[in-house]
């Protein structure tokens, strides 16, 4: 019944950075809005695109701020910040407490435990971004519980040399390939039982 593409969880923060939100969607949008403001003001003040670490620190400070006063409630969402700056590609996760760490693989949301287990099995240092897209799709399909969870729409974005270091949605044909491979892998697993 839900119109496809109407519940976006991934947003661009700047040309070279994007965020994926888990949790309360409205809270997530506020974090993205703050991140966009920080990225733009950095560009105005310093003449360069904001380094991803700096962006992460600023957003984390803001999220932490909302845990300090009785008249503010903490954010009900965690953000995965991915970007590509002059020091290379980086991934950060900002939690509602305001804590933020850099990761090579991370997961948030209901199926995060299972997803993290799957990620740990991957050999990240030798994977290209294209291959990563397929792996991520496989993991998302495999942790989705058919019985308990509602039907879902897969949304993916990437930022790599192939995308000219720009944050963009994964091209439609690659996304379809990834979904097909993921569904096939799921069938195999079911058959293996």
């Amino acid at each position, binding site marked *: 019944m839900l119109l496809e593409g109407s519940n976006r969880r991934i947003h661009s923060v700047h040309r070279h950075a994007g965020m994926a939100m888990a949790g309360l969607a409205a809270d997530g949008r506020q974090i993205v809005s703050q991140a966009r403001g920080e990225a733009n003001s950095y560009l105005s*003040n*310093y*003449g*360069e695109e904001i380094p991803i670490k700096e962006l992460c*620190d600023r957003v984390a400070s803001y999220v932490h701020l909302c845990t300090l006063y009785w008249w503010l409630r903490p954010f009900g969402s965690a953000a995965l910040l991915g970007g590509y700056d002059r020091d290379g590609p980086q991934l950060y996760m900002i939690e509602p407490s305001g804590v933020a760490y850099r990761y090579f693989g991370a997961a948030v949301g209901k199926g995060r435990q299972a997803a993290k287990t799957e990620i740990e099995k991957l050999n990240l240092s030798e994977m290209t971004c294209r291959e990563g897209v397929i792996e991520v799709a496989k993991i998302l399909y495999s942790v989705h519980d058919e019985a308990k969870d509602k039907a879902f729409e897969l949304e993916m974005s990437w930022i790599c040399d192939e995308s000219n270091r720009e944050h963009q949605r994964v091209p439609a044909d690659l996304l379809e390939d990834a979904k097909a491979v993921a569904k096939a892998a799921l069938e195999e697993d079911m058959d293996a039982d």
Partner: protein
Amino acid sequence: MEPWTPDWTKSPHSMGTTIMALQYDGGVILGADSRTSTGAYVANRASDKITCLTDYVYLCRSGSAADSQIISDYVRYFLNQHTIQLGRPATVKTAATLVRELSYQNKSFLEAGLIVGGWDKYDGGSIYAIPLGGTALKLPFATGGSGSSYLYGFLDQAWKEGMSKEEAEALVVKAVSLAMARDSGSGGVVRTVVINEQGVTRNFYAGDKLPLWHEEIPRQNSLLETFTEAEPMRT
């Protein structure tokens, strides 16, 4: 009627000045004269117009001495905080952007012609010229100050890409001394600053060691020498 007082009791300190910067293979060289004038009076004949902003970025100042000093003080302060926050040295572009913002946003109050030059690991040696209005121009070489008028044509012809450090520094000294010969607002000594990956080197060229150009007479220590010369000067 007001009693007449000389203009140098009332004029603000201005730096007549010749400043320049040029890129060479591996870094940048900044150069300047050393005259600060108040009207016709030379307030400081040995000033240092090349100021440090960060370990690897320096600023050449011209125009109003007060204005250029206050801009450099603010930018040094901002860059210091920025470096601490970022955890790595600031880029030359960032320094130039900060200087440009101050210069442009306060253009009706300020009169400062500035050149930002330095080295960072992403872009190597870079030079940004920020003249009066607050525009920022990235260039391979730049000049500023009243003496710069005499250098545009000279540098257009003499600057080449990929010079060695020695060639480039010799060119800077030659250019600044040429401008000092023709511009009354420039004079004194030539100071240069070389910035590259290895660090920063300051050099000093005394006024009497500089080459003499057309119609410049050699420096005399006293008039007594002139009058007791074996061979009197002939016109």
